[in-house]
């Protein structure tokens, strides 16, 4: 049986299009130091370090853990690096949780980062996929999600429309105005999104996340230490991770099985039967606006085809019955390898009551989701304020 463990401290950097004042280890250390300070511990209390970051080609540094680890106090401690694309950061948190839940370590630091401005992200995207198969048709992230979004809209038309995606973009950029770390803080309209330049149909410029530099970190502790370190720790109540193949028979990008199953695993572990009633808020990985609708359905927060209604009726707004991405989400900042951990940090902060200007009242349970690859990798983490 796994030991109880909780997030006791979190740290984020400001997310920016270009951080030219720091190199990669300095960027990662900035977030790590803030998490250690937030937990109110001495760096020497950390027993193990887990690092998450995206494909090495993003920054052109192979085995970055050799370079970054020493900035995070890895000396004399075990270090692990996780790389599963967009789920890298969330995967690092999950690996750090395993360290503590297993009983092997009491206090563990998880750090994730991406410094996309150091390289040319579209070069990196062009090296993904099977080199003998679809790499020749690789056109970057937006066309891939364009294919996913088109399939989703075609299935649920006219119930879900293109402007439902625009509503997500408007909502999340507005939420970001209350998040001091967000990169894009914008008051825009549905018309602004609909009239923005086409990228990969149905995706338009304002449906897209930005490219970001940034890092995030959190400290996880076992029960006894967690209760001393934090007045209200964010307990890990449920975890689910699932992967699938992009070349699987009948793969369904509009209702991805990896996401459905990850959610089911997490709900089962957290004893959640009716997620939208039992959870108070969700932070989900919407790199492109339509994905918020797709993941909302796959996470079981509404029925398939109801994603559009969720945003149009205001249910998922900051003031709604079930707020989604009060931080502004990935649409407001996307340091890819860190974005999954940022969702977890934001979900944990809501439970801890430390989300500042975008804090929601009375959050008892929260959900964090992440997405990586085509639809191969999905993670779901559920935090609770009570053990």
């Amino acid at each position, binding site marked *: 049986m796994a030991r109880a463990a909780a997030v006791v401290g979190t740290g984020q950097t400001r997310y920016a299009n270009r951080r030219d004042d720091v190199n990669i280890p300095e960027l990662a250390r900035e977030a790590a130091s803030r998490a250690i300070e937030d937990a109110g511990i001495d760096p020497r209390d950390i027993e193990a370090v887990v690092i998450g970051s995206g494909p090495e080609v993003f920054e052109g540094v192979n085995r970055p853990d050799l370079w970054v680890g020493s900035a995070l106090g890895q000396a004399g401690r075990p270090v692990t690096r996780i790389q599963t694309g967009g789920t890298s950061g969330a995967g690092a948190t999950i690996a750090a949780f395993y360290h503590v839940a297993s009983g092997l370590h009491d206090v563990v630091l998880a750090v994730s980062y991406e410094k996309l401005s150091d390289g040319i992200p579209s070069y990196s995207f*062009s090296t993904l996929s099977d*080199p003998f198969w*679809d790499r020749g048709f690789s056109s970057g992230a*937006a*066309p891939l999600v364009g294919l996913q979004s088109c*399939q989703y809209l075609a299935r649920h038309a006219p119930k879900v429309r293109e402007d439902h995606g625009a509503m997500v973009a408007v909502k999340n950029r507005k939420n970001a105005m209350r998040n001091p770390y967000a990169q894009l803080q914008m008051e825009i309209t549905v018309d602004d999104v609909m009239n923005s330049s*086409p990228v990969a149909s149905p995706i338009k410029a304002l449906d897209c996340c930005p490219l970001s530099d940034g890092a995030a970190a959190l400290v996880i502790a076992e029960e006894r230490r967690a209760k001393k370190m934090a007045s209200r720790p964010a307990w890990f109540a449920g975890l689910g991770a699932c992967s699938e193949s992009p*070349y699987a028979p*009948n793969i369904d990008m509009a209702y991805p099985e990896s996401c459905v199953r990850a959610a089911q695993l997490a709900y089962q572990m957290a004893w959640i039967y009716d997620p939208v009633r039992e959870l108070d808020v969700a932070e989900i990985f919407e790199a492109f606006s339509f994905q918020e609708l797709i993941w909302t359905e796959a996470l079981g927060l509404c029925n398939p085809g109801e994603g559009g209604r969720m945003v149009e009726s205001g249910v998922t707004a900051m003031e709604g019955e079930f707020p989604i991405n009060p931080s502004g989400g990935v649409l407001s900042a996307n340091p890819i390898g860190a974005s999954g951990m940022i969702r977890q940090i934001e979900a944990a902060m809501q439970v801890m009551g430390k989300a500042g200007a975008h804090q929601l009242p009375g959050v008892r349970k929260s959900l964090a989701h992440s997405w990586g690859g085509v639809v191969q990798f999905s993670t779901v983490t559920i935090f609770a304020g009570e053990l």
Partner: protein
Amino acid sequence: MIEKAKESPGGGPVDEVDGELHISYRQPYGEHYGRFYREMCDNKRIMGVKCSKCGAVLLPPRPYCGFCYEPADQWVELADEGTLKTFTTVYEPCVGEPAVQPYICAFIMLDGAGVHFPHLLGEVDPDDVEVGMRVKAIWAEDRKGTLRDIKYFRPI
């Protein structure tokens, strides 16, 4: 692998350096790709392999079914026409892109296949494309044993 780092000239502190990576790879096709591309090149045929357990015809061809973890060793010829599963019209340039913008990327379910086939659509206005429409492969004259042995798919 060659890695170069050029330092900025001048007397003050160096703020940034330019780095480059040039890496070449030689990657074996494995058991199945060779036959698949030979059939495309020589015979204008698209071949899949059938999972011995679930019976799905897999693309790209591979000697195992990743879902059943069972061998997939029976070759099956697929039609060079099928149904459009999804598409996107791409307007933004990208490294390694397959065509000049705007172009249409598509996932096509070939008749008889269990997995979609990634390719381009041609001879059609993006506004006229609809999910579910029937499409057919237009083969290249000069074939070299790649997916580009098909120029694109066009609506039937």
